[in-house]
């Protein structure tokens, strides 16, 4: 692994984060409605109360100064306090991060377990009934927004058949697993559909290639031939897995709202509508960082999967 490659990737990620933070800041600045109004809610807005709020949140300063003040804090590890709850942003996020990560991991795992075998079977049985069934299932899955899938699952397996709890995050490992199963499944349905298509397309492309015909012509056993194709289809499949990790992470926003789970997603939705700038900023940076990390892992996996790919070369 080359240090130059990692340094370039780190710089790139930093640049994205910098641009994003300016963007979010600018957005909040341009947004209609004022923070002080939102904070006061229905209480009467006396000039003194407004003044106090402005002073507290430095709202009278020019926007550049406010941004630099915020940036200075971030560089020292201080993400500020939530306007909405008064909690430290670090604490608010820290307490909710594990749930979202667990949900993402669980959802991705289910998607891989469902999608990969279905895609492989479809490719090897191309054109047969099982392939068609897999294809139709994949399209249906891809077309289901996570929240809609979640509601259908809730109706089926929590209301109609009371196998799973309707709401809540659950206690302990077993409880957590039980409570997160339906949400993770709702997330996995769309991701699995995507994975079925990617896997099948990649494998079909490999199976049509000359080296497969040659391998069969010289009498290699079918399992070995299948191994050849799978090994060469690994790169596009890895790309797809990276894609579903990020889409699952993004999907948690919808799923946490659907299932009333206290994770980062529901925090984001609440903070956004409240224009809770420090929390929104921190969440945007954190989620982007997580996604950059996933993409980096995928790129590292490429080099293991294909020795032709060297670090820093364009693989797309």
């Amino acid at each position, binding site marked *: 692994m080359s240090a130059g490659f990692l340094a370039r990737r780190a710089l790139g990620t930093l640049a994205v984060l910098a641009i994003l933070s300016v963007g979010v800041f600018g957005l909040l600045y341009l947004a209609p409605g004022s923070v002080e109004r939102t904070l006061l809610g229905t209480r009467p807005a006396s000039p003194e109360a407004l003044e106090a709020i402005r002073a507290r949140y430095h709202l009278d300063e020019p926007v550049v100064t406010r941004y630099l003040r915020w940036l200075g804090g971030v560089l020292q590890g201080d993400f500020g306090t939530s306007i909405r709850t008064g909690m430290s942003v670090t604490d608010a996020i820290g307490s909710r991060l594990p749930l979202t990560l667990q949900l993402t991991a669980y959802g991705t795992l289910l998607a891989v377990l469902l999608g990969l075998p279905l895609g492989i079977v479809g490719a090897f049985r191309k054109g047969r009934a099982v392939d068609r069934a897999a294809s139709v299932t994949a399209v249906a899955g891809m077309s289901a927004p996570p929240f809609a899938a979640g509601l259908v699952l809730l109706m089926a397996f929590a209301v109609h058949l009371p196998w799973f709890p309707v709401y809540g995050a659950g206690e302990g490992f077993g409880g957590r697993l039980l409570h997160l199963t339906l949400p993770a499944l709702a997330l996995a349905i769309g991701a699995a559909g995507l994975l079925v298509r990617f896997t099948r397309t990649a494998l079909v492309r490999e199976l049509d290639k*000359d*080296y497969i015909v*040659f*391998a*069969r012509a*010289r009498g*290699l056993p079918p399992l070995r031939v299948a191994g050849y194709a799978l090994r*060469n289809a690994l790169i596009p499949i890895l790309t797809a897995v990276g894609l579903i990790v990020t889409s699952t992470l993004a999907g948690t926003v919808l799923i946490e709202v659907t299932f009333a789970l206290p994770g980062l997603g529901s925090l984001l939705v609440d903070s956004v509508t409240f224009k809770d700038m420090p929390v929104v900023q921190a969440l945007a940076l954190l989620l982007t960082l997580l996604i950059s990390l996933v993409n980096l892992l995928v790129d590292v996996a490429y080099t293991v999967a*294909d020795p032709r790919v060297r670090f820093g070369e364009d693989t797309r």
Partner: protein
Amino acid sequence: MSIGETKPLIDVRGLRVGRAADGRTLLSDVSFAVEAGRSLAIVGESGSGKSLTVRATLGLLPAGLVAQGDVTLAGRPVSRDPKALRALRGGTVSLLLQDPFTLLNPLRKVGKQIADGLARGKRTPAEIARRLAEVGLSADVAERRPYELSGGMRQRVGLACALAGDPTILIADEPTTALDVTTQAEVLDLIRRVQRERGMAFVLITHDLRVAFSMSDDVLVLYAGRTAETGPAAAVRAAPRHPYTRALLAAEPPLDRRLTVIPSIPGTVPAHDAVLGRCGFADRCALAGDACRDGTPEPRPAGPGRTSACVRADVLAATAPAEPETAPEPEPAEGSGPALLEISGLIRTFRGAKRPALAGIDLRVGPGEAVGIVGESGSGKTTLARCVVGLERPDGGAITFDGTSYGDLRALPKGERARVLRGVQMVFQDPYSSLNPVRSVGAVLAEALRAAGRDGGKAEVAALLDLVGLRPDVAGRPPAGMSGGERQRVAIARAVAGRPRLLICDESVSALDVSVQAQILDLLADLRSSLSMALLFITHDLAVVRQITDRVYVLASGHCRESGPTAQILDSPTDPYTRALLASVPIPRP
């Protein structure tokens, strides 16, 4: 197929291939047999069904195609038993494919790929080294992956893989078509040596008559999915018993002399099921009579060990083929008057390349002169042509075309650039990609005419089509459905629409079948004299360059090795590289 005491190792009877979806037949009544130690070449142009024949024999047809007929491998009937056939692949029969760049698993080490085909107990480094040595490679190649090897090395590895299961029958489908001439000669030698040492029955599929006659004992000529002629290679070459074979042999340009007109076969190969119930060649045959269109001619004996599917084989045997007229060698026109194209010290290095593609080339084309550039892949011949027309930007040197000097044509002022491009045009190699699939032939030509300052009306398009030997109704058609030869005619029409003074042909006939190649070469020679333009003809094929050029430059690795009158260079080369190139042309076995 000579009559021997031993039973043939591979015996195919009445092979027929059809498409399940629409019931179309692609190939029928193909039979052949090869004994141990013997070799058979199956020869045919594209569309003849030669690749389908081997795929069907080995049970490797693409999805949707079905085969009928009797196939016996090493005494075992396998045509109705796919499992038995699968068990025989590798250990009894093996297949080597055409393209060395795609036939190996790109991610697996070469040694492991060979080991995958070895019997279980034999998968040792020593055995792999021995297998690599058999194909002329050193043991350390085992640790490399295909992308680290050259085309010739990959094809050697492919051979080692095909031989890993120690088959008694080896089938090779165009094994050297994708290779350079010198590499092709080495690989052919290798295959022949290994076949002899192992005493295998060998079936070679090829479009190249020279390769076929140099490699095999017997030949089988396929035409439109049916057997035209079979027999011992030497006998067939000396006296073909089918008009198609005779025409094909005549269309092959000779290396040692220049012909006034290369005898070509009119038209193109028809689809198999378009000529059911009659002789498929009748429409292109000079000897054809009513009997030829009345029923499918069956192969019948035509001399010792020979068959012919021509009802007029006797007439054919009685008439000697017309000896084509040899043209006088052209007078070298070099030095007379100002040059049309003058290139001096042209240099081009691609980014990331170890050595320059062009390392200072000088070249001159006089008005109306035909100049050849000969070289293998990587010689820089195509880069040179692309620099002249501004598709490539040289790093150094100068190009002067008709009084206008430039390095990068794109950097010239618009008017001057337009003037140069009216004077010089180019015909590309691949007739399929050189026509825009969504534009009709008429639209393509009208645009070219307008670009040359003409009005591009219907009459002009029709005249242009006539010039290249196409009917005017072609104008309304899209390129889809046109044959390679027809497409290349359209591409030539587009290039000569503005009556250029220099036409550059970049391997413009090398993707075509031999019979069509002769048509296009004749067309180019005609156009050269009728439009009095100069030709810059780029090719890897020495026989072709002999037919069409007055002077030739031999390029290798971006350097010019030798130049001079074509006849002189080909008859008495002074440069060792030119000699090696000439020595690589396959010669028939005695």
